[in-house]
């Protein structure tokens, strides 16, 4: 069996034959070419071909899930038997369901034909650009890849979705070195549907490389303070993602440990903050088109600081009585605010520009603490020196409530759209 549709139908039938009342399967094939350069030199070209299936079987509300990294017919039969066997041992739960038939669809997105030579040329050009523009920066690891995949979702309610997409990816981890002194590492990554732009010109790449070059020598932050910090889009995205997972995710709502569990429709953040998940946004490359057997859609999580929705799966939604979220919750979009970054910073007498957060997993109450990496002192409304060994701590709920401003500038890397964020009430030590 080579045809993906045939394989998908075979896998679904195998689950029925094994005894599933209702079932869903997703079958996929993927190929990837990946170039790697270590310490500024190409070291590897990797090509991977994979195929696999994920299966979910329900028997009287009992759920079993199996995944297999093969499309072999015998292996599919065995996987289906194991999946149903797993379900037999589970406890019944009426909240376990599969997608209803509302529509079927086929989606094609991105670039479906790789240009390997052009990808190599762009990656080589990036290494040369870094060497010329930022001679003290060492690209510790650079990867440039092209991925293409096809997948089919089927379930026993008659739902069928087919997706095909292809995208380029580029990422770098780097640090700067002068003599025996080294900067903290930093990294970036982008997802692309074309190779029309030099990699160094994408996202905030040139800015971050420059910051790395100027961070070899650092100063301590000095006296502890509770005050203003400016989060870069990368760091804001990281903390926002932690907050949404901690307060809106399946586990937090199912368990009832989220401090936002009763806050739907009420203010949980500053009025200037609207957070959406937008897989169909034009600035997002190859966003998910299908989620849990239904067509995905763009949706708000917070609008004007008001909580609009939790990020719930079908199961968690059925279990709690809340609405299921209409996409996977990735591809976060926060539109820029009214003022330029420079203006935002000019109002900070003493504070910190935080480029990266390295710390412990925030607790269920949102408390966080960690080291501010790739960060700079703000003095008299200006970014001055790079800092080291500087801790920041606070609470994610308070952080979102105390947002003071969002910058007009946004990071657009094909996966997210995020501005800089000015926050108050953070402890810096």
């Amino acid at each position: 069996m080579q045809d993906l549709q045939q394989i998908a139908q075979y896998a679904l039938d195998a689950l029925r034959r094994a005894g599933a009342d209702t079932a869903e399967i997703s079958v996929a094939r993927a190929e990837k070419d990946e170039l790697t350069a270590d310490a500024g030199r190409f070291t590897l070209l990797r090509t991977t071909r994979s195929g696999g299936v994920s299966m979910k079987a329900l028997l009287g509300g009992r759920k079993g899930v199996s995944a297999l990294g093969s499309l072999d017919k015998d292996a599919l039969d065995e996987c289906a038997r194991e999946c149903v066997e797993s379900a037999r041992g589970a406890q019944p739960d009426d909240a376990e369901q599969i997608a209803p038939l509302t529509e079927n669809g086929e989606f094609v997105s991105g670039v479906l034909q790789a240009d390997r030579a052009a990808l190599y040329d762009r990656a080589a050009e990036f290494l040369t650009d870094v060497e010329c523009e930022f001679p003290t920066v060492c690209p510790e690891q650079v990867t440039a890849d092209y991925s293409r995949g096809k997948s089919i979702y089927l379930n026993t309610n008659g739902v069928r979705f087919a997706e095909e997409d292809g995208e380029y990816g580029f990422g770098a981890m780097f640090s700067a070195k002068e003599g025996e002194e080294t900067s903290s590492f930093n990294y970036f990554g982008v997802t692309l549907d074309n190779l029309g732009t030099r990699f160094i010109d994408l996202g905030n790449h040139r800015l971050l490389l420059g910051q790395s070059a100027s961070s070899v020598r650092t100063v301590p932050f000095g006296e502890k303070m509770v005050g203003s910090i400016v989060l870069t889009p990368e760091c804001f995205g990281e903390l926002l993602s932690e907050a949404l997972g901690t307060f809106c995710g399946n586990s937090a709502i199912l368990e009832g440990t989220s401090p936002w569990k009763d806050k739907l429709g009420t203010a949980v953040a500053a009025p200037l903050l609207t957070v959406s998940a937008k897989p169909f946004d034009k600035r997002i490359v190859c966003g998910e088109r299908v989620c849990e057997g239904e067509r995905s859609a763009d949706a708000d999580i917070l609008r004007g600081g008001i909580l609009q929705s939790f990020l719930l799966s079908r199961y968690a939604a059925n279990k709690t009585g809340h609405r299921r979220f209409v996409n996977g919750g990735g591809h976060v979009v926060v539109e820029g605010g009214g003022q330029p970054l420079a203006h935002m910073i000019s109002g900070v007498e003493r504070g910190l520009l935080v480029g990266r957060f390295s710390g412990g997993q925030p607790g269920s109450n949102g408390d966080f603490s960690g080291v501010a990496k790739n960060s700079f002192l703000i003095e008299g409304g200006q970014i001055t020196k790079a800092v080291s060994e500087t801790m920041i701590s606070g609470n994610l709920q308070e952080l979102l409530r105390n947002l003071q401003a969002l910058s007009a500038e946004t990071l657009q890397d094909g996966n997210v759209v995020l501005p800089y964020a000015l926050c108050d009430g953070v402890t810096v030590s």
Partner: protein
Amino acid sequence: MTRAMQIPPNTELREQVNTSRKVSFLGGNLINNIRIRSGGVSARTLRGGVYGFASDAETSPEAVAAVLKAAADNAGFLDTRLRRKVEALPALKGAVLRRDADKTDAQQLEYLDFARALDEYIAAKYPDLAGRSVTVSADSMEKTLRTDFGTESYSLSPRCYAYVFLTANTADGSTVDLYNVYGSGGTLHEVFALPADLFPKIDELYEQLRRKAEGIYPDAGTHTCVLHPNLAGMLAHEAVGHTCEADFVLSGSVAADNLGKRVASELITMVDFAHTLPDGSPAPLPILCDDEGVPARDAVLIKDGILTGYMHSRETARHFGHELTGSARAYAYSDEPLIRMRNTAILPGKDKLENMIAGVEHGYYFTETNNGQADTTGEFTFGVCMGYEIVNGKLGRALRDTTISGVAFDMLKTVDMLSDDFVWVSSGYCGKKQIMPVGMGGPAVRCRVNVGGR
């Protein structure tokens, strides 16, 4: 399948299957009941100093032949453009290395029953909890490797763990969380006898959580602290181990300029064990041979406070002129080997934990960590999810979540006591392009570290 294939020059051929199981109860609801099996074949070919790699989930003779050809073509693609004219790596003597393990995995139903028993125990005994979750998981890697220089290796490495997460309400209307992991290398049957064997440990976890709910935030700043062995392993792995991976050294890690120099108190000796511990017992996650076909040997990273070595692939060992350590490992069949730690540990000292605490006037005793990160600068960060204040040499109130940090080679010079006990932790994954199971261990360590607070 791969045994019949002729291995071309400068090439490795690997067939691998990874399996995993996960059963999770969240608040009594079964949210995960999953088994995953993923496998295939891969080849890597070196030409002119660059590698070509290819993999396929299919393992038919035709697929293996295609993978070998694609790997050679990929190496050719880069070599044609780069023309580095680097000589092939020094030839190695072939060896047959085999590490078997019990292949008889338990049925999914047994994982379900085990997890359910733990969850029901917690639900019945501790109804006041704000939240609870129990996960029982297992994973294994089965690898068969053949190289052009005649090495044939086979390994099977199963692990099994139970994760218990508890959440409690606090008097101020907030919540606190705590978790612990129980288990080791081996299958479910080998690692766990009865769920009831874990009940006393869960009782201990609950008691710690109860104290944490009444806990305080530490004072931010630099303090004299005692790190429980659970954190010492993380210290060995994150703070020092990563900086001593030779690929990171080549990229400019802080270890690059410190070989042969004092980087720690003379109390500190740190080793990345391959497969056997000094007492002859097996390391938690033993590795006989890496995925380049190199027999694994211990890498002594720090000896009596002096930085003595790095962990190597064949290529970095040649670059530095060092002995091979057999540290290049790949997570999945479709992954290339990278330099990875195996079982990294600070060796124990001669002090008693109670004496270490008794000598601290004002400081902290940190007992559990939930993550850790390292930097090229040697700066490390650990999330600390359980600990106690030390006041006048005695343990005081419990602590809320915090973070500790330091610069490894500065902080290690402040170590003035090491306990004579030792703990291995092997449940985690190290992240470095690919994930990888690793072991880490150590004694209790007394040192000066930066503590986050309010």
